[in-house]
């Protein structure tokens, strides 16, 4: 005979506690606040809630994340009030569903060492000509807007890189704390790509490179 009409049955998924969440990284953009991000635990089909818990060196107390909202999903934002330097934070993320919970490996962080600024802004370029000497280019820029460098709390150092548009290799120039750089030995008539990034002095990480900027070197350069 013909096969009977199709029927389907749903076998319920095995219900398990969530796996371990993983703390991806923590970053402070301005040396005043910081954010930590995690990869959520796979949830086994159940609704899973993530909780970030932390303790600070020199204190017994365990606190919960002060702000899950500001920095988006799977993150915790620590505002100025909750950010201290030269102290180790012991951070864990707990994933919980109705079957149980699982805790990430602890992440130890001293905010002093996770400062990664945004890229420099207001990059300008000027060709200087004078009678006495060869023409040269002056590149100037400003620190990223979030960084308060005036107070001395955060000191930034800069590095720039450039290459001819069709070139393969970048030339990198470290300029220290200056926010300008003079360039003399460029090839006349060529188009160059320039980018700048910055990093806190001593510790912390380089920012992303600023967007590519193109400069046209005059033929009489």
């Amino acid at each position, binding site marked *: 005979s013909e096969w009977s009409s199709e029927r389907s049955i749903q076998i319920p998924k095995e219900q398990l506690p969530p796996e371990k969440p993983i703390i991806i990284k923590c970053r402070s953009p301005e*040396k*005043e606040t910081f954010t930590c991000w995690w990869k959520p635990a796979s949830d086994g089909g159940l609704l899973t809630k993530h909780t970030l818990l932390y303790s600070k*060196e*020199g204190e017994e107390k365990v606190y919960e994340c002060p702000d899950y909202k500001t920095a988006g999903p799977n993150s915790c934002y620590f505002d*100025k009030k909750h*950010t*201290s*330097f*030269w*102290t*180790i934070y*012991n951070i864990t993320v707990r994933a919980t569903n109705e079957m149980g919970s699982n805790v990430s490996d*602890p992440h*130890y962080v*001293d905010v*002093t060492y996770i400062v990664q600024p945004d890229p420099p802004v207001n990059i300008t370029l000027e060709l200087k000509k004078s009678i006495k000497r060869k023409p040269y280019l002056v590149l100037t820029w400003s620190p990223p807007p979030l960084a*308060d*460098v*005036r*107070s*001395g*709390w955060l*000191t930034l150092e800069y590095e720039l890189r450039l290459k001819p548009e069709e070139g393969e290799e970048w030339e990198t120039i470290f300029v220290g704390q200056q926010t300008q750089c003079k360039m003399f030995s460029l090839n006349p008539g060529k188009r160059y790509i320039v980018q700048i990034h910055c990093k806190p*002095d*001593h*510790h912390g990480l380089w920012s992303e490179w600023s967007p590519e900027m193109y400069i046209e070197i005059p033929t009489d350069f």
Partner: protein
Amino acid sequence: MYTHSTALTFCLSNTCTDLQDERYAQGRGFIAKAVNSCHTASLTTPEDKEQAQQIHHEDLLNLILRVLRSWNDPLIHLASEVQRIKEAPETILWKAVEIEEQNKRLLEGMEKIVGRVHSGEVENDIYTPWDGLPSLQLADEDSRLFAFYNLLHCLRRDSHKIDNYLKVLKCRLIHDNNC
């Protein structure tokens, strides 16, 4: 004067970075153990920008002096004990000596600044004692290496802290908060 001191601490923290390899430390679980273990932790120092800006400059200078004085003793021992680590490369040996020298020079510079600010009187006897020498001489290699790691972790932290405070003071007192 400030610039001079700042340059010295700059060298200090660079040297510390060389001496202390973070990956190595993570691998051995040293970081977790390093919590709550700096002998200068009992000195209450500004923990963020606002605290650093609110503290009176004389108080901040005195704090810096206390931290520096608290390092005299451990640095002398660090320089001599590090010579006995089998796996220590040559560069580390002379750098440890260099750190000790730099701390001395920085301390002298700071004593002069504070002396000037106070117009004379400098509190002489205030520092936090260090009792970590036995741990640098432990027979067990792993425990001894941890003691070194930890001392360098604390040194790096304190030298960065001092450098940061000096920069805040310089911008406040010399550049009217417009560095």
